[in-house]
């Protein structure tokens, strides 16, 4: 079972409340999450990664319990060992592209040096066309270069799962095609679950053997059935 969850979470800001209330279990190893802007997709992904704590319920990924309120289980993000792509990248501004990508490979209290040698880093930089900008800092990058750097940084580890929040939104169509292919290959090679948020129908076609549609923090049953019918 890829994902098995039953969680609720309320976000408050002033008088406004946003309530996420989900019970879902996915059986495929690739899940695409769809839904209008503000429906809770990113919040859900953050909870899976351990960046946000659900108010109650439980959350299992690939058979491992990540969170269970009743049992008092709540793994730290470090323990969850997932690759996570932030919707707005969260690149480290004081490190170059190369250092950002190599970040998780270097253990200990120091950051990788600007010239850190690593096959994995070279591979992803090259593959994502970042080789020419590898010594630039994030603020010297174009939007798409930033997104690719963030993706490379997430993928360079050998994670237990891939959680990607709109990974191709800032890329041109050609790059998207190339990177979708790369990502699919990686997922199949590592044989780990992939959960992907997107607004792009192409992504749905390439990745999904299963989709989850959200709306206002809940499952959009109507659309869910429609899609299931379409696939079947």
């Amino acid at each position, binding site marked *: 079972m890829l994902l098995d969850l039953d969680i609720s979470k309320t976000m408050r800001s002033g008088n406004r409340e946003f309530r996420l209330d989900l019970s879902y279990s996915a059986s495929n190893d690739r899940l695409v999450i769809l839904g209008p802007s503000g429906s809770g997709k990113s919040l859900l992904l953050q909870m899976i990664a351990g960046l946000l704590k659900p108010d109650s319920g439980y959350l299992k990924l690939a058979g491992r319990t990540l969170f269970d309120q009743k049992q008092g289980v709540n793994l730290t993000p470090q323990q969850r060992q997932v690759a996570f792509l932030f919707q707005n990248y969260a690149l480290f501004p004081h490190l170059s592209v190369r250092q950002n990508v190599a*970040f998780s490979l270097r253990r200990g209290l120091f950051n990788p040096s600007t010239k850190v040698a690593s096959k994995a880093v070279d591979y992803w930089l090259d593959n994502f066309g970042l080789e020419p900008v590898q010594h630039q800092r994030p603020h010297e990058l174009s939007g798409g270069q930033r997104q690719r750097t963030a993706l490379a940084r997430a993928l360079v580890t050998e994670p237990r799962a891939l959680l990607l929040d709109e990974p191709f939104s800032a890329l041109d169509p050609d790059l998207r095609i190339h990177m979708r292919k790369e990502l699919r290959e990686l997922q199949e090679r590592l044989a780990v679950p992939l959960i992907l948020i997107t607004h792009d129908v192409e992504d749905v076609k390439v990745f999904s053997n299963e989709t989850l549609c959200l709306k206002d923090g809940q499952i959009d049953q109507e659309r869910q059935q429609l899609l299931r019918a379409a696939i079947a």
Partner: protein
Amino acid sequence: MESVWIALSLSLKVAGWATALNIVLGIGVGFFLARTRFFGRDLLDTLLTLPMVMPPTVLGYYLLVLVGRKSAFGAWLYDSFGINLIFTWQGAVIAATVVAFPLVFKPARAAFEAVDSELEQAARVLGVSELAIFFRITLPLAWRGILAGVLLAFARALGEFGATLMVAGSIPGKTQTLSIAVYEAVQAGKDDTANMLVVITSMVCVVVLLTASRLAPGRINERAR
């Protein structure tokens, strides 16, 4: 002249140690106050600022009361380890540290609070330990703000004499720092000596501060991520 060099090296030793201690203490306390939430946090912050508000001589007097041989703490130090801080350069370090401490922790707290917590989150998901996150993400991003405080603290420690004088005395060649010498020269009406000493202190301070801000990493333009 030789006595000037002795006083100078003593001053640098005292200010250097006090700054080093304050880097550790100030950054530690600043980080703690920035990242934990508890009742009375702001009150604690304010109380820790109080060394600033006390005339140094008075602070020195309280320190004397605290670590002197007649105090419980001072007596324990002396009985257990044979340590007597009064009239030693280590005593001067303690005085300078206490006087300059608020200068480090307060800007450090503000700098830590300005660090984008999402970047720490990003490092967490990348599997890096909390300690490593502190050294690899938080500290480098807060560093410019912290440095401002550290440099102020160094200057203050170098110039401090009120509290130092009280705790360490003014023993030429042993605890007489440059600024105490300046003070004495002014008191004695030796304006020329005083001026010369002030020029030396200032030059040393300028050199140290300039070097420190050169060595420190430059402005990180966080403009766009």
